[in-house]
């Protein structure tokens, strides 16, 4: 229970809300779908929260008292006992010198319509258990407004909804923001996703300019704080890793250049030296820019040897013939297949395959595949370094170190501003595929001595049958395993993936790699979506559109952070694909402001509107 929550009886709850004199309205018509409340005239906003204390279920021992939580979807001005506001308005407009007399009794009222989010019920241990709205509040019960300005409000909401807000996740949690009541956040009512949401896939949806980057910063910061708590022993939980693709190079220094807050670099620099060793080494920032090869901020390099046909098929359009051809080349040449394709004539390649495997491909197919890998050749890629396998050609890649870092609970930002779109997608795909295969192998292996060989095989390298696969990478991984930098073995036992850090891979501009056409021949991302949670690997799908993402991917996302979307269709899709029931929140999505996000997750019974705070380094 967060320190600022309290045990509440219904009486003390009312007093925390300002006492009976703070009564805002009275329940009028009600059913399990919708409530109507008649309330005092006040400056209100759609999305305001209200509490309805209710004694209907009270048992002799005092348990069973309930507090319903009600959220407005619509307001209407009304006049007490005045049936037709139109007539009044017409008189005001057309009748000379018409006035509205000031009455002692309130004649100007509000009619609120909205939905019950659920109710909290007092249980025997004095705490409140939240339930979905299966019941109905009693007739004419009194309604209290959740007022962000009222001192006790946060305590009340935390007590009633703590579990729904993710505050009671014992295994770690990720801070998203503060619960919104109308237009204003309830400071002191933080909303969290459970840490395991990282491996259960997260969707971040919102049109450009609504604050997705700021949200990502808040999430990154929260993950870093979680790791710090685990590292210091304050929290007995798994660490978490995140590979955050940064297409605008803003995560590292955020708004420092414009006089604002520093980004992750600022947080890292504030760490104590021992913390830096545990949380930031060997690096936390990679870029295609001309950076040193050592230190926490490094130049990013991967190798042609890290790329497999599956990676390319995941990011570029391939025909079925081309897919088969690529696999044939890879079977023959392994990690050298890119250089082979780039430096060998199409006819020769076809001949070589026929000689090696007895399979005949058209030269046109070979040429087409060569064109598709050409973005890596002739120095066009600043990230993917050539590897020919010939003497003098070295395997120059940070992929093994990236994998090792992620397996130790690290935050890694990858600045992709200087990368081509394909390079960025390929980088992501390579890392995802390798991680997925390694974790799957670790899970499948029970004998420590078998692990190195199994890992090699998972990487397609089996010297016994002449398969090259990712030989260089496998060698590097084996070295890291021996050095203890890859924590798959502990006390001569294979570590279960359940004890390894949760890893989340951020897919920016997700429709480019997760659209239905792209993944029709298979995609490592689809595999991760379907099976990743078993191995502790998840995706964060960042997109301006919901509709452009493959349905198979969307159905596997268990937490959606939905910000303002561009149009009606996208809002409909967001509601349709939501993990929680977002029906009734259509209007909410329509009027979302900057930094406001609807959090919907399988771990919650109800969607929660949240205000993401502006990121601050300190």
């Amino acid at each position, binding site marked *: 229970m967060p320190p600022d929550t309290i045990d509440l009886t219904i009486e003390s709850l009312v007093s925390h809300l300002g006492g009976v004199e703070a009564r805002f309205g009275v329940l009028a018509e009600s059913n399990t779908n919708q409530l109507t409340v008649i309330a005092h005239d006040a400056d209100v906003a759609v999305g305001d929260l209200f509490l309805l204390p209710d004694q209907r279920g009270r048992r002799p021992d005092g348990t069973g008292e309930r507090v319903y939580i009600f959220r407005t979807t619509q307001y209407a001005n009304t006049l007490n006992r005045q049936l037709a506001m139109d007539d009044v308005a017409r008189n005001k407009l057309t*009748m000379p010198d*018409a*006035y509205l*007399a000031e009455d002692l009794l309130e004649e100007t009222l509000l009619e609120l319509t909205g939905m019950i989010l659920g109710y909290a019920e007092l249980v025997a241990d004095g705490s409140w258990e939240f339930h979905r709205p299966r019941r109905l509040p009693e007739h004419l019960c009194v309604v209290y407004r959740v007022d962000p300005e009222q001192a006790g409000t946060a305590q009340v909401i935390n007590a009633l909804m703590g579990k729904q807000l993710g505050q009671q996740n014992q295994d770690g949690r990720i801070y998203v923001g503060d619960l919104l009541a109308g237009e204003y956040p309830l400071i002191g009512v933080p909303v969290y996703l459970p840490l395991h949401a990282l491996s259960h896939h997260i969707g971040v949806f919102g049109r450009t300019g609504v604050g997705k980057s700021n949200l990502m910063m808040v999430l990154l910061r929260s993950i870093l704080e979680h790791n710090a708590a685990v590292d210091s022993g304050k929290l007995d939980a798994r660490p978490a890793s995140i590979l955050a693709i940064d297409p605008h190079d803003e995560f590292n220094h955020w708004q420092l250049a414009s006089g604002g807050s520093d980004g992750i670099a600022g947080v890292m620099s504030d760490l104590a030296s021992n913390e830096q060793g545990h949380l930031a080494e060997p690096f936390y920032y990679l870029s295609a820019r001309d950076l040193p090869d050592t230190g926490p901020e490094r130049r990013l390099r991967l190798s042609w040897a890290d790329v497999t046909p599956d990676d390319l098929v995941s990011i570029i359009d391939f025909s079925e013939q081309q897919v088969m051809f690529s696999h044939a080349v890879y079977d023959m040449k392994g990690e050298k297949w890119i250089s082979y394709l780039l430096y060998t004539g199409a006819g020769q390649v076809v001949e070589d395959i026929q000689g090696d495997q007895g399979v005949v491909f058209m030269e046109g197919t070979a040429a087409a595949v060569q064109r598709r890998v050409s973005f890596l050749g002739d120095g066009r890629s600043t990230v993917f370094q050539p590897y020919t396998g010939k003497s003098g050609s070295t395997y120059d890649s940070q992929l093994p170190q990236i994998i090792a870092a992620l397996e130790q609970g690290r935050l890694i930002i990858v600045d992709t501003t200087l990368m081509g779109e394909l390079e960025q997608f390929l980088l992501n795909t390579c890392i995802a595929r390798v991680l997925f295969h390694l974790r799957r192998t670790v899970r499948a292996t029970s004998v420590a001595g078998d692990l190195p060989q199994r890992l090699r095989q998972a990487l397609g390298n089996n010297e016994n049958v002449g398969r090259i696969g990712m030989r260089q990478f496998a060698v590097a991984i084996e070295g890291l395993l021996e050095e203890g930098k890859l924590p798959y073995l502990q006390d001569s036992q294979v570590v279960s993936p359940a004890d390894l850090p949760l890893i989340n891979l951020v897919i920016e501009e997700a429709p480019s790699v997760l659209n239905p056409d792209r993944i029709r021949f298979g995609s490592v991302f689809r595999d991760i979506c379907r099976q990743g949670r078993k191995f502790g690997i998840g995706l964060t799908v960042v997109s301006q559109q919901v509709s452009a993402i493959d349905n198979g991917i969307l159905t596997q996302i268990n937490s959606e952070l939905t910000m303002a979307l561009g149009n009606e269709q996208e809002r409909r899709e967001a509601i349709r694909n939501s993990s929680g029931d977002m029906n009734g929140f259509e209007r909410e999505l329509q009027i979302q402001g900057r930094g406001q996000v609807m959090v919907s997750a399988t771990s919650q019974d109800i969607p929660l509107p949240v205000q993401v705070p502006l990121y601050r380094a300190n």
Partner: protein
Amino acid sequence: MRFDFHLRSQVKEQITQLATQMHSWDDVPKVNDLEKMHLQDAITSFQHTINIEPFTIGGVDGSGDYPSLTYSDSFVYVTLAQGTVYQSNTDRGLKEVGPLGEPIIDFLWLPEEKKQRINNFTAGLGRLAGSPVETVIDESDYRKLNGKIAGKTHSISQLTDNMICPHASDSSNIGIQLRITGELGAAARLLSAETPPDITLIDSTFSLPTLGSAKTSLFFEHLKRWCCVKASQRNLLFAALSKSHGLPGIGLIEQLAKEKLKPDALGQAEHWFLRLPQTGIEDWETTLTDGRTLPPLQTVTYLVRFHRTTPVLRLDIDLTYWQQHLQGKSSEQTKQNECHLFEQLDYASHDQRCYGYPYPIKAAHDRASLTKQERVVLRKQIIDAAVKMGMRRNLFRDASQATGHA
């Protein structure tokens, strides 16, 4: 049952006959040129008033549930009445004056047994009036007026004993008596207040239906006059404003007003009043009131139109007050005084919720109205309380609901 009466030829024929009758009745007033001239002379315009010297104005209205429920051969009647007081205000037009008086809420149980019924009814009327029935009869001038007409003055006890007390099941007559008594009771409370409003309006008329009858009377007649007497004693205006003027040929009067006041070509004349000729004051009579006791005895009656969109209203004022406060030394001065009164009323009739009608009455009406749900809640409360006392719930019934009429 399917509703198809309106399609039957017999029904259509009857409706045509009805319309013919109404049309011929509408033509009844045969006003000669001289009378037209008097009527037009009497039509007086007043200012559309948006600025006025400070004054207070009250309004009362009532409602009820008649009956709320039945038990065996007894009936429970609920009456609700409310008074409001407003002060003229530069910013808001009218501003309500506090503290707001408690509404009059009365639950009356009437069994059919005669003695108990009369006792209960009399006690209920007294509660609504806020004074014992005998006191009201004694202090009211109704007894004197009745004696003047009937030729014999009855004692208080005679009048009390012979007050009309309908059968317990005669809900419409009982309802009328209770509602009007409740409204007049609310007015009486305003008039008796420490700081009473300068003007108190009631949604009614000053008609006295049984005036001149031998001994029988309606209690609200006594109370109505009692309010007039109390108001006059305190130099307060107590007036009854009715939306039903009850006069034929109103179209003629409106036409005369239009001709005299010359509004826009398409517009209706507004901001005018017409005092019906008063025997002994005016030297002319009108045929418009033939067959009607209009103005009622001891009353001055006006027809008034505040705004073109609201109908012509009837305003009854106590004759004594009129003589003391409105009647001037000359007819011009009288008109001046009358204009001032109607300008006050016009000022109070500009609220957006009921433009053209004094808002204090509307406010009182809104607060005294019982919604269907409120009636249901009250019934439940009454039944629950009775059941707690040991009565059987299933003997209470809402007659209309039990027979499927509601």
